[in-house]
């Protein structure tokens, strides 16, 4: 059994996957690059070569930069909150208390709820006239009058982040919990004997086990948050006054609502580049973390 045969065999086995990937990802991506240098319309005209005009127009317009800021804000805040809440919930679920098994099982529910259903649910909760959030806060005396949660630029993005967080922090919690359970009991016991306080125990005993899985979760969640579309589409469609118009929504508008496939493609490529940079940075971080561990 020669080495060449083994690697040829490996390539043969990978062929179906690679063929499919080239058909549904590789070719479209190349075509997006081609389109981004044309003024093609979505329906009708093929478009002609316009050089880098699309890119300059997108990068010099204020829409792109504003959407970039909003997207970054959404990604950073929601992912950070998910990580913190997730780890806290995991530490809690790792304690002894009655009903622990049931609570652990419940954690899967928000994650399993389809994103669109989650968005719809929260839109109903935030409804300015008949929503349960307004009703609950008013009845508890925390709010004087009903508020337009999704209608104010200040609160709309926060409201979206809360809805996104609620769906995603339980998954982080479950991943972190699995990691915590891998911490050998005798190490915890030894640290107790050594008189380590709870903070130090977390820092030096649990953290090494948590770091790897959490970093992966962090990478995946950040990339997903950067691509966010569904929840915003259903809840605000980018409003009010475009205060929640993220990059994906902007690309949709350009390519599909305005039918400008060419400039839409250029914008999509810019987004892709940004996500790639983000991923590369994270990968370097991961490697460093792996080296340290």
């Amino acid at each position, binding site marked *: 059994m020669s080495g060449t045969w083994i690697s040829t065999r490996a390539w043969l086995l*990978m062929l179906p996957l690679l063929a499919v990937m080239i058909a549904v990802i590789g070719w479209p991506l190349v075509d997006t690059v081609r389109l981004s240098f044309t003024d093609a319309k979505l329906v009708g005209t093929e478009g002609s070569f316009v050089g880098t005009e699309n890119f300059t127009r997108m990068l010099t317009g204020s829409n792109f930069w504003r959407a970039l800021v909003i997207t970054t804000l959404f990604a950073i805040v929601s992912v950070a909150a998910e990580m913190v809440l997730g780890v806290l919930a995991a530490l*809690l679920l790792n304690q002894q208390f009655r009903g622990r098994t049931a609570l652990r099982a419940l954690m*899967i529910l928000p994650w399993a709820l*389809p994103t669109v259903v989650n968005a*719809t649910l*929260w839109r109903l909760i935030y409804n300015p006239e008949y929503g349960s959030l307004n009703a609950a806060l008013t009845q508890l005396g925390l709010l004087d009058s009903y508020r337009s949660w999704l209608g104010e630029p200040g609160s709309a993005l926060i409201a979206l982040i809360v809805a996104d967080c609620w769906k995603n922090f339980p998954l982080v919690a479950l991943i972190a919990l699995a990691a915590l359970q891998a911490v050998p009991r005798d190490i915890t016991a030894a640290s107790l004997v050594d008189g380590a306080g709870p903070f130090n125990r977390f820092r030096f005993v649990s953290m090494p086990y948590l770091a790897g899985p959490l970093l992966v979760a962090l990478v995946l969640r950040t990339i997903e948050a950067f691509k966010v579309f569904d929840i915003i589409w259903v809840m605000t469609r980018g409003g009010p006054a475009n205060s929640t118009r993220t990059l994906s929504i902007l690309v949709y508008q350009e390519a599909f609502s305005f039918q400008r496939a060419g400039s839409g493609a250029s914008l999509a490529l810019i987004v892709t580049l940004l*996500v790639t940079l983000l991923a590369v940075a994270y990968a370097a971080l991961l490697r460093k973390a792996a080296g340290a561990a």
Partner: protein
Amino acid sequence: MERQGPLFSLFVHASALLLAVVILAPLVWLFVMSISPAADLSAKPLKWWPSDIDLSRYRTLLSAIENSTGAAFIASLFNSLKVAGMATLAAIVVAVPAAWAVSRTPAVSWSLYTVIATYMLPPVALAVPLYMGLAYFGLLNSVFGLALVYLTILAPFTTWLLKAGFDSIPREIESAAMIDGARLDQILRLLTLPLAAPVMATSALFAFLLAWDEFFYALLFTSDLRAKTLTVTIADLAGGRVSDYGLIATAGVLAALPPVLIGLVMQRALISGLTSGGVKG
């Protein structure tokens, strides 16, 4: 083992209660809305518990009278099942050989990382050519076309999970059988695949859930009952002329049931799948 003071114990229980409320409150409210009379839901102050239980929306949505809201809902339910089912099956079929090959031949693993890297591509970067390509082949507004597009998401993801699964099956078993004169296809069929069955099941479930949840491509590439999936139907329902919030909530409850049940039953497998993929990926 750990000495817990009564104060600490109280704190833990209180936090656990808070966490349970945070997780459950929105879900319970979704369900309550689905069974509350419409008038209760627009009452001020809001009624938190239905004055009498109203199951009419479940009947409306699950009745299959031709050209009705229910028929549209059921059609999209089946479309979601078809698309998610087909895409999952196809993803597993291409992912299993690839994942095994990479697991046993590390020299080609860079190709897998390239495939996995595509996971970070925003769907908007592929949408326009995919749209034009599907149009060219007459696959717009078709469950087959949509299932094909879903492979962009499912195939890299399942390959990643499966590779981690194969990694945990010792190669020695395979080489021992090889020495005994077994052919590769026999080894895979009789030895490796049965051992990898749990991982394959987990990957398939993940893939199914991802496809069930997908909205963006479905929004762009489907237009009517022939292919429209549940997520798009719900978004349409929520954005359209429905003065009864209960109906929207009911659609949400029904759409959430399959993944929630899968999640509850398969929780352990799903989490171990994610973490093993995560740690070793």
